[in-house]
């Protein structure tokens, strides 16, 4: 939060900087907690409710911290017609959470995104920034395990 | 003191209350009711018994939050105790094999009709259950009721059921499609019972209703629950609560139920202002 204050000091105190400031908070803290909202509101001289209203409008900001691993499944049209929904279902089953949420142990966040623009590779799964193209339902298990293993290695 | 085992909001405004009362659970029969007091300073109100578990020694009622007392009840939770929980009171419903019986329930009556439907089914009747809800999200106990019914119908003002009916319309359409009805049991708000009776009056189907006048002691002492049936004065608590709906003086009942409306509102307003927490 101390960083947050430093970052905000560089943000002009006008409301048009709101989304900019929220990007900062999201990048700095991994989500936008109530204290960050309060600080941004004070800095930009707008009400906390307004900040929150903007924050909840945009998908780029999250209210909850994300898991250690972020699994992003593209659900663009191209991926959809190539079977992305089945991949989503399989991940949901494997991780035991709905898309858009984080496992209770804060290990995985499963999310879908409208299009990552790599349609040739569809269906695409991005795990911690790594692209996996033409994913099949039967490969999901491997992908999840791969994540766990790489973590074990690091640990 | 009786301990609450479970208090749960079933749907908006309707709450289930399961109370540990082994004595009542052992003796109660369909159609009977209990008197309950939410706290030492509260009033006593009657609630129809909606289910019981003789082994567990518990009695279940379903009530609607519609006044100070029920609002108080709705704030209780498992483990809390109520100072008064007495019963079973009233005469049990007349359970026999009539043939085909329509059990109509609305609001809290959806739960109240359940033990009667169950008993009627056990007695060999063909049970048609008709449940009235305003909208789909107000329907509860569907599974429970389906299990004791040969037919399960819903009248609602919700497109979910592709209908826009009220109970009488459904009774009429049932009769129109040639269903044989030997008896109707209706439980719910006074208006529902009244309009059910109006629908069965012409075809002459015996219709039993579970009256809900204002009641104070529930044992025939105070006379508050006086109602006119067949021109004679009856006490709903000891002579009922079940009566022949075609013989009830409905206008009198409507009027009597409204007697204390003003005071009821004041009471609730006072309670809300003084007892409901406002954040500081």
């Amino acid at each position, binding site marked *: 939060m101390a960083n947050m204050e430093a970052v905000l000091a560089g943000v002009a105190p006008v409301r048009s900087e709101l989304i900019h400031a929220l990007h900062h908070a999201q990048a700095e803290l991994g989500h936008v907690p*109530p204290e960050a*909202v309060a600080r941004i509101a*004070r800095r930009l*001289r*707008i*009400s*906390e*409710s*307004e*900040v*929150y*209203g903007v924050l*909840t*409008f945009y998908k780029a900001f999250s*209210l909850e911290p994300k898991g250690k691993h972020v699994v992003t499944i593209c659900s663009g049209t191209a991926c959809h017609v190539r079977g992305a929904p089945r991949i989503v279902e399989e991940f949901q089953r494997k991780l035991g959470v709905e898309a858009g949420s984080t496992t209770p142990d804060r290990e995985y966040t499963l999310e879908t995104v409208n299009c990552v623009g790599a349609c040739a590779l569809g269906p695409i799964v991005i795990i911690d920034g790594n692209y996996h193209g033409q994913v099949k339902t039967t490969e999901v298990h491997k992908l999840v395990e791969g994540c766990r293993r790489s973590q074990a290695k690091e640990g | 003191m009786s301990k609450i085992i479970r208090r749960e909001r079933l749907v*908006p*405004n309707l709450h289930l209350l399961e109370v540990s009362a082994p004595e009542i659970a052992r003796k109660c029969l369909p159609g009977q009711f209990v008197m309950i007091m939410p706290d030492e300073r509260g009033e006593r109100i009657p609630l129809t018994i909606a289910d019981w578990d003789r082994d567990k020694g518990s009695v279940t009622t379903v009530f*609607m*939050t*519609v*006044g100070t007392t029920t*609002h108080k009840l*709705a704030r209780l939770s498992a483990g809390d105790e109520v100072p008064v929980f007495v019963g079973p009171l009233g005469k049990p419903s007349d359970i026999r094999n009539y043939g085909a019986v329509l059990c109509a329930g609305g609001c809290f009556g959806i739960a109240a009709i359940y033990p009667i439907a169950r008993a009627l089914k056990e007695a060999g009747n063909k049970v048609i259950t008709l449940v009235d809800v*305003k*909208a*789909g*999200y*107000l329907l509860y106990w569907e599974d429970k009721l389906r299990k004791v019914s040969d037919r399960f119908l819903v009248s*609602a*003002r*919700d*497109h*979910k059921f592709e209908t*826009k*009916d*009220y109970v009488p*319309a459904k009774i009429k359409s049932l009769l129109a499609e040639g269903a044989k009805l030997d008896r109707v049991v209706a439980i719910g*708000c*006074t*208006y529902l019972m*009244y*309009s059910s009776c109006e629908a069965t009056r012409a075809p002459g189907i015996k219709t039993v209703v579970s009256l809900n006048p204002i009641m104070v002691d529930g044992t025939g002492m105070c006379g508050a629950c006086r109602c006119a049936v067949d021109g004679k004065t009856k006490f709903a608590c000891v002579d009922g609560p079940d009566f022949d709906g075609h013989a009830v003086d409905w206008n009198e009942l*409507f009027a009597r*139920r*409204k007697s204390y*409306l003003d005071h*009821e*509102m004041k009471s*609730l*307003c006072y309670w*809300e*202002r*003084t007892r*409901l*927490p*406002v*954040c*500081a």
Partner: protein
Amino acid sequence: MKITIDGRSIEAQGTKTVLEVAQDNGIYIPALCSHPRLAPYAACRLCVVSIKGKPGFQPSCNTYPAEGMEVVTDSEELRLQRVRTMELILSEHPNACLICSEKADCEDHKASIRKSAEVTGCVFCSSNRRCELQEIVVRLKVDSIPYSSVYRGFSVRRSDPFFIQDYNLCILCGRCVRICHEVRGAAAISFMFRGSQAVVGTMFDRSLMAAGCQFCGACVDVCPTGALAERVGRHEALPDAEAETVCPYCGVGCRLVVETLQGRIQAAKPAEGGVNRGQACVRGRFTLRDVVYSPSRIRRPMVKKDGKLVETSWEDALAFVAGKLKSYAGRACVVVSSQLGCEDLFVLDRFAREALGAGGAVPSLQPSILDGLGDLVKAHGLKTPHRASLADLPGSKAILVLGENVPVSHPVVWVEILEALRCGAKLLVASHKDDLLTRHASQSLKIRPGSEFYLLASLSKVLLESGSPQAGSGLKGLDGFKKSLEKLPASCLADTAGLQEEEVRRLAEALRCCGPIVLVFGQGLISMPWARENLAALWDLAVLTGARLLPLAEESDLFGAWLLARRKPSGAPSLETVLRAATTGEIKALYLAGPAPLPEKHGLEFLVVQDSFVNEACQGADAVLPAATFAEAEGHFVNLEGRVQKSEKVIEPVGEAKPDWWIASHLASRMGAEGFGYEDAGRIKEQLDKEGLLALQEEGEAGFVPVTAPSGGPERAAEYPMVLPGEYCPDYYRTLALCQASPDFKVLRNPRRLKIGPEDAAGAGLQDGAKARVESSSACAAGPGTARVKITGAS
């Protein structure tokens, strides 16, 4: 210009929307999101019309007339489009009752059901029969909804005072959000999430209290459904009568429509016309009922018998009081509240002089800002700088607010200031804290409490140094003023006010460059010993810049009381002298028709309390006379602009209460005074008019007054290291505090709560929620007033 609506040729202005033009001409177009006070929003899509030459449908709320425009508001396809849109709206609103075949019979039989906790149909809803959805359903003849009913399942929010919020009923028309943002500037609520998840709410779903809501009730009043419902009276039936009164608290003089059911007040809502233009504040909107029916109402006359107050008849009480008072003629005084009507004040004043031989009735709020300005007029023989009316605010270019937290103390003035900001005005604020006021300010100076004089004088100085503005040139006293400025110590600004000259220069620039300026100030500016100096500096700045003054009168008839007081011979007693005289025994009898901090030990022999509420003074009173409240008597009030407004009688008096003028005139008559045979308030008003007592005539020459540095300046005192700034808020009616009358109000503003900065708190060893002990340097710090204090933790 001329436009055609449904074949009718209609004269239209370009400033009104097609919807408004149609409505003005009696043409019905359903609409849910539009509101006269709000910018077009075009979200409900019910007000669609066809316009010749344009494809498809156009929302009439966002379409402005153009010469020759041809509008069709009613056609089969429009009706169908509206019905289908309405069906969509209703699919997410508990709609069963709207389309129920039994709705005619049902309401009669299910009256009690309104007491339910959650609304699942109209019969449960407090807005039943005044709901805008119901009206549109009838108009459009919607009788079925081809969608499953969606209940969003929000829990009903009951943890806030004054009103509850059930967003299951919300149709997202956005009126509440928009009025909160656009008109009230609070932005306590906002839209959250988006798409079908969109909902009105607060940050992280916190309470409105936590979101900084001031509970002005504007959102409740614009809500077309029952989603926002007043807590009190929510379960009651609809009102059967209404009357228009003037809000009894502050000096803005908002007009309120008071709704009654069977002669009892249910609710008060801001009237559309009048100074307040459909707006009110938490006091007027939500506390009237609690005040009028407060348990501390005095219901019957009481006289002291054997050391105890006992109830008696009016006849006996009047006889007793008149008899006793007669013997104290010349040694008695009358104190009045400036929240009484002009009729009451006038009769009480006459009563004081003609029956009691006193110098006149003494207002309890003294000195007031009006008195302060009046004193300057008297002392220098000049004319007061121009006065501003509320209507001057939106047309102004700069507004300087001093000594008052306007959004809290005078919220309706704040609404007009916000309107001015929308029209391009600059808001300049000098305040010691960050709040709503500074959030909206174009320029705000952080100033130490109590140092406004230095800011004002420095502003004048800077303006004069860089060439005096046109407005002040050539006026009387300019040279004297300049000289007096030069005498001021140079370092005071930074030392005392904590301001840098550069900041002041920027503020001065803002005052110089633009057109009409309004200086808004309140009791906070005179709550310290150097009140006169502050006012003089303000006066001069106004004359110099040609600004208008808007003194924020704290009490509803303060202006009226001031006008009436002008006819007093000079040397009329002030409250302070009265209290001193009472203590020393100089006067023997006191007649209290308003709050007065009577010392515990006094030399009074006879004390009469004429009030609506039992108060501290009653304990020692020899007689207590129940007075009617504003709602129980007709009367006139003069608001802060000098506007004389009539307040109607709403209900019969509670208990045996009588109007104040009635009591005073009966006593006077009994004491043998002449000309007190008033039959009703109307007669008194006639006399007031005949004598021209309520007319404001200010004569004399405009000019400057010399300024002097405050002598008892806020120098740092080691013993009392902190300054406790007085925060004025007319949160009372006569002797009743609103937090005492209304439990909800107590939640909102508890005067026993102290706000202190984190460093100061740490220094005093205080934590959030701890008890504090406040010691003051001056004896009169019991009431609100800026004072030097010492704050320590209390056990």
